[in-house]
């Protein structure tokens, strides 16, 4: 009996566990976003025949562009798509910091100078990957 009694947590432990489970449910329902409590958004959005997205290019002094190779850059550039999506909501300092980081990464990767970064909103045919439409949304140069 004494052995069995040691198995049950005290009142505080039970209250903490209940709060933990409640936080899991609330975050799952979208009411709390405090990592590691999340709403478990794993491929939740609907994919369609055409998808809108973002592409970044780096232009040199003559205006010649090439795509920013995010997938070939170090892991800390992995959130590039989300950062591009939120670029328009950043203040001037935020944009400048982000732009400087991307320019530096491209210059180091390609070993050539970059004059500006251009962010395009794209519409892509999902099956082939062909870009159907693209519109220039933002440009930024080195600060």
């Amino acid at each position: 009996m004494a052995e069995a009694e040691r198995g049950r947590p005290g009142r505080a432990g039970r209250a903490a566990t209940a709060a933990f489970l409640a936080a899991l449910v609330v975050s799952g329902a979208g009411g709390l976003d405090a990592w590691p409590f999340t709403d478990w958004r794993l491929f939740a959005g609907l994919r369609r025949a055409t998808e809108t997205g973002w592409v970044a290019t780096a232009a040199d002094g003559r205006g010649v562009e090439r795509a920013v190779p995010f997938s070939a850059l170090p892991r800390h550039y992995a959130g590039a798509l989300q950062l591009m999506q939120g670029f328009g909501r950043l203040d001037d300092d935020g944009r400048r910091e982000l732009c400087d980081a991307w320019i530096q990464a491209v210059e180091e990767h390609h070993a050539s100078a970059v004059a500006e970064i251009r962010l395009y909103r794209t519409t892509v045919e999902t099956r082939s990957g062909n870009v159907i439409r693209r519109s220039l949304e933002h440009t930024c140069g080195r600060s």
Partner: protein
Amino acid sequence: MTALPAVGRAHDWLFPDAVDERARWVRLSLAALVGLRVALGPYRALAGQPEGLFRPLGIAQLFDRMPSATVVVALQAVGVVAAVVAVAARRREGVDRAAFVVAWVALLLLGSLRSSVGKILHNDVLLLLAAVPFLLARPRAVWPLRVALVTVSIAYFFAGATKLRSSGLAWVTTDNVRFLMYAASRSGRPEWPSIARYVADHAWMSKLSAFYILGVEVAFPAAVFWRWTRPLFAIAAVFLHVATWFTLGIDYWLWAAVAPLVLVGAWRLTPARR
């Protein structure tokens, strides 16, 4: 009024006066997984991130920028040593618990830093959350195993529920997964992109995959109520994550380890209906 007896039954089921050797083994295995993840996770690659890219989430908000490689490696070293102590000192209650907490905090920090690059990542989340009830419990107590079972079930259930909330049944009935596979086959992530392409080229296979994924996720809480379903959900979860790796190239091996560990560990425990 009618809800109160149900709450009482849930309380009694979650917190039984019981100990079981299986709970100790699940706890030790989770501690070993935390150590492995801290040692082998891709955290060192985060160091050197330019300040402008840092988007801290959760506990990473304690930092004003991504920590240096020295700090990341130090965190890994502390986490690994603590996990080894948590496993090796399993007969010294108190020492093993404290060590497990230290290893868990190291993983929490490293995982939150990894999610601070602009994209929310879930790779470490299931292990972190499933381990929570074991952190302060006595080694053989049964209740953490039951809480972990509920935690894992909630995680999978909401992964499905969020799909339904965002996309409705169209997540299954349309070509959604087919297009997901086409995109994955071009993403550069899968080792063999032809597998995703093959699934995408066969519409029935894409629809079946979608039905399977959503079905497993939404039905997962059944594992809490019917004991016989636990090994089935363990197999289903492993298959889901292995298939995800082959088709999408996304590494969820930690989920593929945690889910069966908790489900098989809880297999012989009494279901929640009693």
